[in-house]
């Protein structure tokens, strides 16, 4: 495959330019199917913007590491001797082999077994084998494993950017950071741990299909919605009282800017917060948990923190979602293949039963044998198949344009089924893809 070398050359993909591909009301399906466009996304989106790598609680002790990806590039997230979380490219300075091959572990050194070069947890090259073959001082001069241009964290969420030309992370996240607080401060100590394993799934469809969509729930998840009726007070049903997916509900879709988007349940959930707190008090470990939350934050703020059940339903462009009881990473594999990694999140400072329940809730809707995400994967595959029909290549994203408003805080807001979120993601996609 020839890589496009200039925007002009990309424009050749079916004779279309980025501007032609993304309009306000519709996008061209080539952005989901075309291998050249996918290559350009890797270059201009994944290799250039802030990417979520992992949570610092995944590497609690010195030497703990996890392997992750930035787009398609392998990286190591490791806790160094100085206590900082380092992100380094997983590629030996000699002839390019990965220096860590198992997905997680604890180590003092990364040794590349091709020729035995050895790096410490800060990435520094500390030993070159049989070094008489090199001039003196070679090892020191080589330095260490390459690093992304920028690594920053927001309350333990570690991000990296391969390009230096990005805003400070906090600024880049904007309101998305405030929403992430809803997960973190669902713990009475304001701490979460991400060490409960991961569901890894893969579907044969484009990464952008994951989206953040309030329109699909009653159709894609009809098998689950049907069950809510039977079981009014079960965990998920209790959260979805008064159909939050009705356009009459107080729920909203929100475009927070820079591609970050939200299914906004805040007002809807606050409207019945007292009932929800009663429900939480009725579950094992609930009274202790609620008391701890009230003590930590004061009743009023505690209720706000509790309202979303730790689930902001937030998409952080391009590879992170914070929803359900999980942190989710999307890895693009090819134009028509995507990996979705779901990491359930445990709360610090709560009774064990609360965390066990969070795990069970997660398993019931997410993962390859659950009631929810397999139907999403199935539908994404059907969308990918359908988009091979290109007589009319347009994807309609106009829903709610007739009633979308700009809120006082500058975010765009639609009804829960409106495509405000899709348009928000595409706006950022277009901005990044248009930068030569």
């Amino acid at each position, binding site marked *: 495959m020839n890589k496009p070398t200039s925007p002009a050359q990309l424009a050749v993909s079916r004779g279309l330019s980025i501007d032609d591909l993304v309009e306000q009301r519709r996008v061209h399906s080539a952005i989901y199917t075309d291998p050249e466009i996918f290559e350009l996304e890797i270059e201009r989106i994944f290799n250039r913007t802030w990417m979520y790598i992992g949570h610092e609680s995944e590497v609690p002790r010195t030497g703990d590491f996890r392997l992750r990806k930035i787009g398609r590039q392998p990286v190591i997230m490791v806790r160094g001797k100085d206590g900082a979380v380092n992100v380094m490219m997983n590629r030996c300075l000699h002839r390019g082999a990965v220096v860590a091959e198992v997905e997680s572990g604890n180590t003092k050194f990364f040794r590349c077994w091709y020729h035995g070069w050895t790096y410490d947890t800060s990435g520094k090259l500390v030993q070159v084998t049989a070094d008489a073959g090199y001039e003196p001082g070679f090892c020191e001069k080589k330095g260490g494993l390459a690093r992304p241009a920028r690594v920053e964290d927001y309350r333990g969420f570690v991000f990296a950017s391969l390009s230096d030309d990005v805003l400070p992370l906090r600024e880049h996240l904007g309101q998305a950071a405030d929403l992430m607080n809803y997960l973190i401060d669902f713990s009475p100590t304001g701490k979460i741990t991400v060490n409960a394993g991961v569901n890894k799934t893969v579907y044969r469809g484009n990464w952008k299909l994951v989206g953040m969509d309030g329109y699909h729930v009653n159709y894609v998840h009809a098998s689950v919605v049907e069950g809510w009726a039977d079981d009014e007070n079960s965990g998920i049903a209790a959260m979805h009282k008064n159909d939050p997916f009705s356009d009459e509900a107080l729920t909203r879709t929100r475009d927070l800017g820079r591609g970050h988007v939200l299914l906004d349940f805040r007002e809807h959930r606050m409207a019945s917060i007292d009932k929800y707190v009663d429900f939480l008090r009725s579950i094992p470990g609930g009274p202790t948990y609620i008391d701890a939350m009230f003590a930590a934050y004061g009743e009023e703020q505690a209720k706000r923190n509790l309202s979303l059940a730790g689930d902001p339903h937030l998409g952080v462009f391009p590879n992170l979602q914070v929803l359900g009881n999980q942190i989710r990473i999307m890895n693009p594999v090819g134009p028509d293949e995507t990996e979705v990694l779901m990491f359930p999140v445990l709360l610090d400072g709560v009774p064990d039963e609360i965390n066990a329940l969070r795990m069970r809730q997660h398993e019931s809707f997410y993962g390859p044998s659950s*009631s929810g995400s397999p139907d999403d994967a199935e539908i994404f595959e059907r969308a990918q198949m359908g988009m091979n029909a290109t007589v009319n290549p347009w994807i309609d994203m106009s829903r709610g344009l007739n009633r979308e408003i700009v809120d006082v805080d500058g975010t765009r807001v639609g009804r829960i089924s409106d495509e405000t979120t899709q348009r928000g993601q595409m706006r950022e996609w277009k901005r990044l893809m248009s930068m030569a």
Partner: protein
Amino acid sequence: MNKHATIARQSEVGQEYEAFLFHEARLMDNHRLEEWLALWDRDCLYWVPCNAEEVDPNRQLSIIYDGYDQIRERVRRLSGKFAHAQQPKSRLIRVLSNIEIESADDGTITGHSTFVLGEVRLNRQVTWFGRNEHTLVRTEEGLRIRRKKVFVLNNDTPMPNMTFLI
């Protein structure tokens, strides 16, 4: 696994256990969901761990961790017309082997088995491998499943949908 496990065929109770497993496999292969549900004791655990074979299910994620109510809900959902990931249904054949009895007394039989499972759906064939651990209890209606644990060999890799009965 116990080194004293015995090959199922060598004992009468083993043959009974093996016959039960073959029956369960046929029901699962053919999506005979209600009949499969009837094989479960009310007091039961259906467990498919994730990422490893041995995990603490209260601290570590599983793929399935169902009690009776959740199994019944699974059957309800898969029996309806909205479980899109099983529309159309997967065609399934599983081959059970290496059936061994770990322990048996008057009321309970525990044993292991392995399987290879071929799945065909929408022009794609997927091969699954796994190891089962079944604990069966004797009830007035016959043997029932008290506990079933399935270690799916690729449970730490990116997985496509596994929405049929495993």
